[in-house]
């Protein structure tokens, strides 16, 4: 390991311990690591966005393209310029145009994306035969159909959840909670692997104990 590698390993280990120290309580070491993290992340993303967004997609594209493909770039450049007008209080309201464009575009894409990507495949996947000739399969399909329908009932806002509707909504929330429980467990396992990764760095790369 070179001298620089050793130095950076010690810095990384020190910052890891400083972040871990938050488990005890807020302290100057955590504050120090937090401010370095936030500051360096800001610098990193500034450089990243410049070299992977602004430069290739606007400046380089303007130079290399011709005709329509070149002049269409005026639209995002103009909207970006409007965002910068926030620094001039008298015309700061113009930045709303850029925000309105982004929100409208996001909502429009979201609607078609949701229909094509979620609703249509989900409805098809939910239309399952309730009896297949095999008990196991049939039970599985019945659970899937019942859970889908009752979950939809839970998200029904037009009527108070009372009586039959209330019963179906309760069954629905029960299925939701079972699904969340399974998701919770599997995600926790993934988080533990992250912790193991960090501990391995400390005990292997830094202390050479394992």
């Amino acid at each position, binding site marked *: 390991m070179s001298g620089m590698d050793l130095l950076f390993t010690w810095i990384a280990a020190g910052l890891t311990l400083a*972040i871990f120290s938050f488990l005890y*309580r*807020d302290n100057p070491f*955590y*504050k120090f690591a*937090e401010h370095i*993290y*936030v500051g*360096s*992340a*800001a610098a990193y*993303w500034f450089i990243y966005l410049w070299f992977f967004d602004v430069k290739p997609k606007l400046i380089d594209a303007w130079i290399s393209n011709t005709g329509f493909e070149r002049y269409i770039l005026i639209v995002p450049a103009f909207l970006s310029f409007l*965002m910068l007008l*926030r620094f001039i209080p008298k015309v700061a309201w113009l930045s*709303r145009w*850029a*925000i309105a464009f*982004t*929100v409208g*575009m*996001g*909502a429009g*894409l*979201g*609607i*078609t994306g949701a*229909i*094509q990507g979620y*609703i*249509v*495949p989900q*409805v*098809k996947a*939910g*239309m*399952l*035969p*309730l*009896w*297949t*000739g095999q008990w196991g399969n049939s039970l599985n*399909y019945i659970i899937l*159909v019942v859970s889908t*329908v009752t979950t*939809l009932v839970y*998200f*029904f*806002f*037009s*009527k*108070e*959840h009372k009586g039959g509707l209330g019963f179906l909504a309760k069954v629905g929330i029960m299925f939701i*909670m079972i*699904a*969340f*429980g399974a*998701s*919770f467990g599997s*995600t926790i396992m993934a*988080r533990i692997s992250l912790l193991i990764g960090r501990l391995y760095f400390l005990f292997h790369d830094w202390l050479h104990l394992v």
Partner: protein
Amino acid sequence: MFLTLALGLLISQTTPDTLTPPPLIPLPVTHVRAYDKPNDDGGAIVVEWELSPMDSLITKYEIFRLEGSPDAEPVSAGFVLRGTTKFEDVGVQNGKPYYYFVRSWLNSEYMDSEITSEPAIASAQWFHRGRLNALIILVFFVGVLLYFLQRAKSGGELYIRRIAGLEAIDDAVGRSTELGRPILFVLGLEPISNIATLAGLAILKRVAYKAAQYGTKLIVPCFDPVVYVAAQEVTKEGYTEAGRPDLYNEGDVFFLSYDQFGYAAGVDGIMVRERPGAVFLQGYFYAESLILAETGNSIGAIQISGTTAVTQLPFFIAATDYTLIGEEMYAASAYLSKDPLSLATIKGEDLVKLIFILLFLLGSILETISLLTGADLHFLTRFFTTY
């Protein structure tokens, strides 16, 4: 001894020539045809063929493209493995005619198919015919929304059931005020084009309105620069609507970091130093959700979370006091404002949900009958097939 060696030498020199079979020449593929890839934005041609009768021995099929005429210089467009009858050539230009042939390789030997008789020309299509179902659903959905909007305009009563998480917003702001502590609002990590972020902004406006009424400080650290600008606008609007624009402090709504865990570390720091009485986590979250929710819990703040991120909802349910699950967040804007036009959109969504419930049940019954009787009743599943 000498005779044996000489005989052995003779055998070793003659055996390979007599035992080596002649090279096996592969039979070509047949019925090669090329056509413009349907429902795309151009720049692609599909080449199809029928397999060589020796397909099980074939090493690979190589597809050649001839630009302009069948006599042009062939250019390799790509390879596919044996057993494959289709290739998508994405190295073509729109409007130019292309001819194709397929070369069947068997180790180092090959045989070419006939060149396609008709040229294929790539072009872009305005409409994806395979997604007609999505268009029909969209048009129907818009129609339902317009109907309920019209009903709302004409003064019809629109009832929405109680949503506990949203009812608790005013209480949380009130509690924070009583404790003399600020309110912290986190909008998640997604950009403003995400619907969950938009829903979070709608809730932020209500919280800002209430905070202004009570004179409580509202802190909004932002992850995304555009969301930060929108959050400033929304907060300012909330304060103005409450009649207290003087209380709005632009510095309380600020950009923190564009790095996921840098942001989480920063928000945690704000939580333990400012000790807010109420924490709102409303938007789209990732792995930082539990870090934020647990820190909020450790400082004793009342927490109201909401997200559409299915993988993060379990953490919010476990660590916060109230959670808006998925669509409850989307309903927030209409629910909080009680505006008839916004409520009409919820009504429209509910009707569509009801129709989908009926479709699920009908589809399942039809699939069951199809399976038991052999009748072709799959028209509903066919309609909902995506391409």
